[in-house]
């Protein structure tokens, strides 16, 4: 991984950030109504509205607002949330941590479960495992999160059998066990779609490796089936598997938005929907920026992991 490639990737990330912020700024500002109107709601007399707009700085020309905001970001100050009257960094910060807990757990569960599942389906091609996983993967990818979430709520968190709490959050630092019970259903919802998709991809990658010349050569060398799978097939399927997972991180970050809304998980997703409904521009900007950076970094990290797993891959 030589220097020029790394610099080019980082420059690309910065360019993307610029595009994202301009786009978000343009989008949220062209709409009718603004944060002040939303705060006052039906108490918005003309006089009240003008006062609040002045207080929130919404009366300044668009371009001035944008460059003030950018100069703030460069200094690390993301500005104040229009609706919540709190520094955006604080509001988005705590939400970010909660969302990363959710995304992290979902990603871990997905990786631990879907890779072996996919491998099993590929190795035992044509058997009941294969078709079973095939059906699971098709059903999984066809259920939107809000349907899965609602069904899980009805099944596991209804008053009839409250196995899991129906949403809500517990601080992992204070009581990790309680936190896990709260996180169980959201992680399951997020994970289901991903597991279905990734196990199918791993299955097709593994099948290709199993039909490769070098696996055939390994078998003809008389190596035990276990060694052929563990030493020749799996290592070479890891790189494409990681590539598939990194592609789905975007889907995961999107899915968070819906799952947090349903399970009352105080994360970025829910904050974003609240900010969008209330035209809270600085918060929308901050969240979009954070999600885009997380997405770009995860792609970069997965590229590094792939380079580590597959010696052929050189970035130059």
């Amino acid at each position, binding site marked *: 991984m*030589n*220097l*020029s490639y790394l*610099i*080019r990737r980082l420059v690309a990330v910065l360019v993307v950030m610029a595009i994202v912020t301009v786009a978000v700024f343009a989008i949220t500002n062209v709409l009718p109504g603004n944060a002040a109107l939303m705060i006052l709601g039906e108490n918005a007399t003309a006089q009240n509205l003008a006062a609040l707009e002045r207080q929130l700085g919404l009366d300044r020309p668009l371009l001035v607002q944008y460059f003030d905001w950018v100069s703030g970001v460069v200094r690390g100050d993301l500005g104040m949330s229009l609706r919540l009257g709190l520094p955006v960094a604080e509001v988005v910060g705590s939400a970010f941590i909660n969302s990363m807990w959710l995304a992290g757990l979902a990603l871990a569960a997905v990786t631990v479960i879907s890779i072996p599942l996919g491998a099993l389906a590929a190795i035992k091609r044509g058997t009941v495992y294969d078709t079973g996983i095939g059906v699971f993967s098709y059903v999984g990818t066809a259920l939107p999160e809000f349907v899965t979430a609602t069904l899980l709520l009805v099944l596991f968190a209804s008053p009839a059998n409250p196995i899991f709490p129906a949403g809500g959050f517990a601080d992992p630092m204070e009581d990790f066990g309680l936190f896990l019970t709260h996180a169980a259903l959201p992680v399951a919802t997020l994970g289901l779609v991903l597991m279905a998709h990734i196990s199918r991809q791993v299955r097709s990658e593994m099948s290709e490796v199993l039909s*490769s*010349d*070098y696996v*055939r*050569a*390994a*078998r*003809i*060398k*008389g*190596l*035990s*089936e276990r*060694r052929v799978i563990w*030493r*020749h097939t799996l*290592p*070479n399927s890891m790189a494409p598997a990681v590539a598939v997972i990194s592609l789905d991180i975007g889907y995961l970050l999107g899915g968070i938005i819906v799952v947090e809304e349903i399970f009352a998980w105080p994360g970025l997703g829910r904050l974003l929907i609240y900010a969008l409904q209330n035209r809270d521009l600085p918060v929308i900007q901050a969240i979009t920026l954070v999600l885009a950076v997380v997405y770009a970094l995860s792609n970069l990290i997965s590229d590094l992991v792939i380079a580590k*797993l*597959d*010696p*052929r891959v050189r970035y130059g």
Partner: protein
Amino acid sequence: MDSTPAAERPVLTVDGYSMAYDTDEGRIEALKNVSLSIHRGETHAIVGESGSGKTTLAWAITRYLPDNAHDLGGAILLSSEDMLAKTAAELTDLRGRRLAMVYQDPSSSLNPSMTLGDQVTEVLRRHRAMSPQEARSEAEAALARTGIRNPAAMMTRYPHEASGGEKQRVIIATAFACNPELIIFDEPTTALDILTANQIIELFLELREETGVAALYISHDLGLVSRVADTVSVLYQGEVVEQGDLKTVFAAPAHAYTQRLLAALPRPQDRLAVAAPQTDTPLMSLENIGVCYYTPSLLTRLLEPKTVAQYGARHISFSVRPGELLGVVGESGSGKSTIAKAATGLHPFEGRIVFDGKVYDSARALDRAYRRQVQIVFQHPDGSLNPRETIGRILARPLRLYDLVPRAQIAKRVAELLEMVLLPPEFASRYPHQLSGGQKQRVAIARAFAAEPRLVICDEITASLDVSVQATMARLLVDLQARSGAACIFITHDLNLVRQLAHRIVVMRNGAIVESFAAEDTEQTDRAPYTRELIDAVPVLDRPAISATTEVPHQ
């Protein structure tokens, strides 16, 4: 179990073996009643064209058949033990220890994420129960035996860090590691360039003498087989049509198919070239042509100054006289195809092209008149024709583009073109996927000549065809050249074929011209060492030429 003593008992006996594949279109017989036997120290060659079933035989012997394959009958005995009866456990124990294999493509047959050393030691530790240290030193010795210069370093390298030749040596070392009774060689040199292939053949002969191992050598190249094999079986559509001692079979082939294979072998002495051109004024000359594939970007130049631009070919100058056939010979990566792309404006180039007196100094300068007079035919028949168009419309396109023929006569002209390349006129309404490789290449040639060009560039047009089809394609090209008076630049890696067709030959290596000479001066002593090496590397059978019969319809 017959009582012949171990020495005379054959290592491998295939007795009346047949098998078939179940496919969507029903059951297809791949091997019909195949019998052969190989004794210790003997090398038995299986010769046949693609689709003859020779590779299927290799998988049958190693019992590594896909799920849709079924044994129909007969036996395969390894030292009189029936392989068909072996259990999976017995097979895993036997493979690598008593039976090994060397593959056609070394770069895809090695695990990309494992060092070369580990891929040799794992066989030793599996079958000869060696400790890791013993295995490592034994592996190093095995690599050294295959002539690899620095075996210790090679042990730690990954496959992508070694050349094609080095990888094939590692595979050979792995195969010989446990002194197996039988090794199957499945076209081990096809994927390598001629010189490296030659070295691998030498290595094979040495190791065979040393170990006395029985070898089954599968190949489509009769010339090569004549250098390595003691006995031979000729396979045609799954059947052994001829078998016996190699010398006698090649000297007096009994079966028509064998005769045709031998006849199709290009021999420099069987000259096919049209009459040499009289005038010396060139039709086209390339002056100092250079093609650059990669120029480092500003950023890379800033950070890694040592990266340099990479050229496909540089300082190339040669000329072609009207009606002449100029042979351009070189290995893959020598830049010969790059010149073809430059000459047809498919890739920007430096330097000048002078055609029929007119000067062109860049790819964009090549105007329509030039493009009509200079046509190109490519190597892969499958890729040359647009799968979505009928053969008739493909052939009609040049006629319409250069409006050579009034609209009404186009259909008639297309029929004439098809006959010109010995294809029935009703092929006009067919689609490319309904034709064989040879037939598709003929349509591509017909399309080139449809434009009534003055120069046709043939970029390895015979490389992906079977030997027998190659011969007829070469003869067709020469006939069309004679009839149309067009000049031709014939690009190939097959020196014998080019010596049959060309008036002059240009030898290229690493993007530069080694030398150029008249075809008849090839055997001169003052040839450049690289050219001499090329000539020696390709053995020529000393059979007298036999007139070729018409092509067997199946192709």
